[in-house]
């Protein structure tokens, strides 16, 4: 990782070389993309969500495109934590970037066990607590819509692990601030905002849902304004560092999140469209700082000019 003071950022105790991460679920466990891009140039990787037991995932089709958006219903397919540790983690461990492991479960106990199972491993910089996946029957975003459950889960997890905890919230709630506040009170070190918006699409020729799972999570540029708004609301009221995500395709998109209050951003769906996006954004932020004569990107965080 090249040292560049102007892009460094510390979030919840994790020191990122730059504020551009890749979002959970869009980057696998890094190996596939390593053939295409220099992963060590990323600020960090959030892995595909890992669960205690292997998960087969949902019935295909798992993807459907909508205007400027992508619906997915993968269903947290993953090999389970034991296989993750044996076959996926060694690759991540060798990387010179921050590794955030995303964890998911059906109930509190699952998260606690996962935290404990991972806590012996060298090379994990933090956990992203996925309580916001719309594509699973149990757990998933139901956990992330109830402040009491969020509080209790985060607090319990904090008691059993030393990792910084980044709690990934769902936008499928009336009041995101209330949930963010609960995560903070539970002891979250940072927040990831936002997971996908719950949606669906229908093929009118066949009258069938376009996804095998019927409903799925919407990502891509279509959801960006919703994500920016939520980052802004949470930044004002909660006071936890935020990793902003939701449809970031360009430098300008990333800057919107930063001005709204994000301390870092994550690229998700855009990795599929152009795997170079994280680097374009990183370079673009650097250029913006130069153009505006700002010495450090940290000076930009939350500086939206309301008046």
């Amino acid at each position, binding site marked *: 990782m090249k040292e560049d003071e102007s892009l460094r950022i510390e979030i919840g105790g994790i020191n990122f070389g730059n504020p551009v991460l890749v979002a959970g*679920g*869009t*980057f*696998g466990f890094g190996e*596939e*993309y390593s*053939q*295409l891009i220099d992963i060590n140039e990323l600020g960090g990787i959030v892995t*595909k969500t890992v669960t205690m037991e292997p998960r*087969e*995932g949902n*019935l*295909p*089709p*798992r*993807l*459907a*495109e909508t*205007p*400027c*958006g*992508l619906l*997915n219903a*993968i269903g947290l*397919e993953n090999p389970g934590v034991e296989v993750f540790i044996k076959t996926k983690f060694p690759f991540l461990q060798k990387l010179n970037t921050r590794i955030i492991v995303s964890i998911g479960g059906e109930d509190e106990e699952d998260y606690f066990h996962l935290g404990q199972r991972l806590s012996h491993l060298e090379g994990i910089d933090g956990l992203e607590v996925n309580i916001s996946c719309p594509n699973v029957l149990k757990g998933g975003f139901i956990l992330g819509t109830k402040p009491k459950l969020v509080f209790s889960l985060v607090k319990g997890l904090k008691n059993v692990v030393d990792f910084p905890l980044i709690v990934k919230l769902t936008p499928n709630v009336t009041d995101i601030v209330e949930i963010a506040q609960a995560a903070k009170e539970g002891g979250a070190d940072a927040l990831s905002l936002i997971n996908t918006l719950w949606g669906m699409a229908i*093929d009118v020729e*066949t009258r*069938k849902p*376009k996804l*095998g799972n019927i409903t799925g999570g919407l990502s*891509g*540029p279509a959801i960006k304004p919703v994500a920016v708004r939520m980052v802004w609301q949470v930044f004002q009221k909660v006071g936890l560092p935020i990793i902003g995500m939701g449809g970031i*395709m360009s430098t300008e998109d990333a800057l919107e999140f930063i001005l709204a209050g994000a301390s870092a951003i994550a690229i998700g*769906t855009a*990795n*599929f*469209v*152009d*795997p*170079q996006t994280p680097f374009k954004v990183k370079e673009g932020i650097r250029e913006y700082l130069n153009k505006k004569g700002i010495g450090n990107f940290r000076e930009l965080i939350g500086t939206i000019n309301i008046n």
Partner: protein
Amino acid sequence: MHQIKAKILYNQKVIEKCYKISLHAPEVAQESYPGQFVHIRCTEGYNPLMRRPFSIYKADKGKIEILYKVVGKGTHLLSSKRIGEKVDILGPLGRGFKINSSLVRRVVLVAGGIGIAPLYFLASKLMKILEKKQKEKNFIPLPLIIIGAENEKKILEEEAFKALMVEVKIATDDGSKGFKGKATDFFASLFLIPKFLSSVDVYACGPLLMLKKIANLSYKYGFPCQLSLEQKMGCGIGACLGCVVKGRNGYLRVCKDGPVFDAREIDWNGVRSSNFTQRDF
């Protein structure tokens, strides 16, 4: 695997709704193997957002060619691109056909509609191997392709295969040319010929139901059979798990574990046509 901006050398209509595009992409052409695909960004804009996967039709002399059908927004935009414009391509991707180079068994290719594209690349490769073998020694049976189409006007690449010296049989739904019926019906009828079934090596690409029928025949008669599948795709490199198909031991990624599968790898009972959409998003 490369991501490059490839210059369009030509982009022409071949028959109604079907086009052939040639791209200057030396690195991709160099590494391409029959059955692999490229993932193309059809617009710089966000609508449509995702790349579209296309089987490689030809790869040589620094170029790759794609034979594609306009089925939606992405392919429509691609068809309107002009010579000299550039498109962002990612490839070559996926696992292609495994060629059994002994060629002792007779190769039979079955193509349904636009599914003919990867089979042409495969046939070119097979013919090169076959020529070498023929010089060396004995008789090797010529490959046969069964080209299925709705009607006479929709038959793709008949002459191209003939030029390769591949034996061509045509099947049309309306009987306007060749056998009346589906390519698979014609294919199944060949098994009435004694000895045929014990000596074929089958490669196919086309609509899902066609592939399912061929797979079932391969179980019944026990011939080797490789099928190229299609599915809505995300990353194209195996990371997002979006393009899966049900395999014997769990889901398989069409982009990385395929797109070419041995017929026995797929759990055909778990495959319903509603699990696939052949239209472009």
